[in-house]
């Protein structure tokens, strides 16, 4: 996970796949499909194949219909599933989606910081608005956008409440913590308010990289109706100063041609457009398309239509085309942090900046407001 100048490539591990009929191809019970050994094996396979990230979705647009129709497998909570995977992987980045509508930043900050402790700095956060709707609705300034932004900001503020160097453990004075480096967050927004500090100390990365929507994200998620549309969306986001992660649904030639597989799946359940770029075809053609998009983006999230079929094909035929031989092997030194791999600068701490800048922050010194 070191920055290679090429996009990092992630694999979505959610459920049976991106297509709503994917789980119908499996005869397994939901409990078996979601069994921990299965999850661990999928993540290890992705890591061994050279994927830089595994991604755990919080929702699919067709969830309710599939589950109610008895064809869905359900899903584990992404943060907890990612923490489990932290124990069975060593290099791969672990990106967990959470919903933010109505969410308590206090709980989110503690859970996500804990995930980063579990993963020793390999965790990423992908906030989505709700289970039904990924991006907040309305333009910037809409109520949803404001709430989304406030939740992300509040979580980051809580991550700053324990500064680096806060631990004293000085038996002579009986002080375990340094009150000058331990702070209230005192966030009061339109939608959220939180006093702080967080319960879990600052995550090893300082801030987990945020892969999401809106100006607060470290990487902005884009899709597209077709590759040209995706490229122009990515370029626009970059022009606005953002780094970009491209969401791609993929269905490949397997035992049967991709078009035939798609027709068979669609006969069971309609795969309505989701806004992600959707690529259907031969592994070589899909690899070429993605290689063409690579210079426009900083990361690619591959969402296999049927994970059991498409994920191995992606690993064998598509992933190698997105990296020159050796780069991924070279990037596999354990212990590197996801922020670094994504090319992000180290996270600043607002309280450290305020103190070192000589400014007085209203919440420094551990004094109650």
């Amino acid at each position: 996970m070191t920055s290679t100048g090429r996009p990092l490539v992630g694999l979505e591990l959610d459920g049976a796949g991106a297509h709503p009929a994917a789980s119908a191809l499996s005869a397994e019970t939901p409990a078996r499909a979601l069994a921990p050994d299965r999850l661990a094996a999928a993540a290890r396979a992705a890591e061994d194949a050279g994927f830089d990230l595994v991604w755990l979705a919080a929702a699919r647009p067709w969830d309710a219909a599939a589950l109610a129709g008895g064809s869905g497998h359900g899903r584990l909570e992404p943060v907890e599933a990612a923490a489990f995977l932290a124990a069975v992987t060593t290099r791969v980045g672990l990106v967990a989606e959470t919903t933010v509508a109505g969410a308590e930043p206090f709980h989110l900050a503690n859970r996500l910081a804990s995930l980063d402790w579990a993963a020793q700095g390999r965790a990423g956060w992908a906030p989505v608005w709700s289970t039904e709707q990924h991006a907040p609705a309305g333009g910037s300034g809409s109520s949803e956008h404001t709430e989304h932004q406030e939740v992300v900001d509040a979580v980051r503020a809580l991550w700053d409440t324990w500064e680096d160097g806060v631990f004293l453990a000085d038996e002579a004075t009986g002080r375990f913590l340094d009150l000058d480096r331990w702070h209230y967050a005192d966030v009061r927004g339109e939608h959220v308010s939180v006093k702080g500090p967080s319960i879990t100390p600052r995550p090893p990365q300082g801030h987990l990289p945020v892969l999401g929507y809106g100006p607060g994200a470290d990487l902005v998620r884009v899709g597209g109706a077709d590759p040209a549309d995706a490229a122009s969306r990515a370029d626009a986001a970059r022009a606005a100063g953002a780094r970009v992660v491209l969401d791609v649904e993929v269905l490949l030639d397997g035992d049967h041609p991709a078009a035939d597989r798609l027709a068979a799946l669609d006969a069971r359940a309609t795969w309505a457009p989701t806004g992600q770029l959707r690529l259907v075809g031969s592994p070589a053609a899909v690899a070429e398309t993605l290689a063409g998009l690579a210079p426009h983006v900083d990361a690619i999230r591959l969402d296999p239509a049927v994970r059991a079929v498409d994920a191995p094909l992606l690993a064998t035929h598509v992933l190698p085309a997105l990296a020159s031989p050796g780069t991924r092997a070279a990037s596999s030194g354990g212990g590197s942090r996801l922020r670094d791999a994504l090319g992000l600068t180290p996270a600043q701490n607002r309280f450290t900046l305020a103190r070192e800048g000589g400014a007085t922050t209203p919440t420094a010194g551990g004094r109650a407001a």
Partner: protein
Amino acid sequence: MTTDPRSDPRRDHDYARPDARIHLNLFQPFGPVYEWSRTPRPQDYYEFEQYAQLVATAERGLFSAVFLGESLRLREHLGALNDIAITGRPDALTLFAYLAARTTSIGFVATLNTTYSEPAELARRLATVDLLTGGRAGWNVVTTHNAWTGENFRRGGYLAAADRYRRAEEYVAAVQELWDAFPADGAPRPVARHGAFVDVEVLPSVPASPQGQTVYFQAGDSDEGRDFAARRAEGVFTHHIEHDEAVAFTADLRRRARAYGRPGDDLKVFPGAAVVVAETDAEARDKARHFRDVFLTERRIRQVVESVWGRDLSDELDVDGALPAEGPSVTEQTLTHGVVNSADDPRRKAAEWRALAAERGLTVRGLVEHLTSTREFVGSPGTVADELAHLVRSDAFDGLNVTPQAFPDGLDDVVDLLVPALQERGVYPEAYAGTTLRENLGLPESVGRRVPELALLPAGGAAVEGAA
């Protein structure tokens, strides 16, 4: 050690449960007292790898579960964050999900508050950990009421006390219905509950684990709390350790449970206690004394007094002298600090302490030591094992929540010395009984399924007591 069968203590007593076995749980308090100098990096107290080591020791010792309390706001002292103890911790369910991959048999009980979360989300998170552990999860249900904690949440502290408990009951019923609505081998069915406090309309997304439902724990000593436990709980956390008091408490709980149509022994009682063992009784006493000294720093002693006086006494209090002659002048107890809580009247509390100190001739140090002393099991492995065997055969309790005194090696002596002594006496298992927490605690399927009418909300609701 008793090896002669003629002196088998089981024959000398008319025990209520001559063949009972004791369960041990690992309990880590929120502000644990460890010797900081034993750890090279203070951050080690938060490292998941260190937790994995501690829990591996517990699992080697066939502990039933790891039990963690919950804190939703860090403690303060005199208007500032309290820097005196190791504080802060990983989120329990995130930690447990990680430990799921590092363990095979031990259970995980998370204390999770119903006040500042939504039942559908909590149900999903717990069910996820239950599935990841193959059915080894438990839930200790608590509620909180103070506005001080509410400051960390947009939901805030918005309910009156009575409503809070009714909401908790509705909440628990919703969570359990969500769990039952997605069987492991079937499709989920939608759950719709429209109560006075909890409104849920959702399709569950996490199927049931091999134990069906997570094991339900709660704390509770009040009449209402006991009744609620008797109706619904499968595990109860208490502090009753002394023989007569513990036997009476447990008998009362079982009697109440039988009144609800339960067998009574399907309720497992776990008091918390420190266990200090060493090769000899004398060594163990020295060790217990040492831990006591580590705990009773001058700052900690002073803080106990300051929390009642409501002001900084660093310039005037001699911990080896008497309590301040004047004060306190504050009339409201704003701090909770171990032996002090916000329901107390500071002036009455101070008068009580002065009387106690005078009666027993105690300095401030002696007074605080007296006030903070907790029941411990201290002795050689044989001494402690005999004591515990007697208590569990008398049905004083089903198990103990054991607090380690160091991290991550604080259970080594219990596992290496005490567990074999308990096994020799036939009061401790030689292997895990099964693969789920429910099996390992000897519990049948969840109460709500066995006695369906108990899952219904009682008229008026009852209390769920908060626990740290």
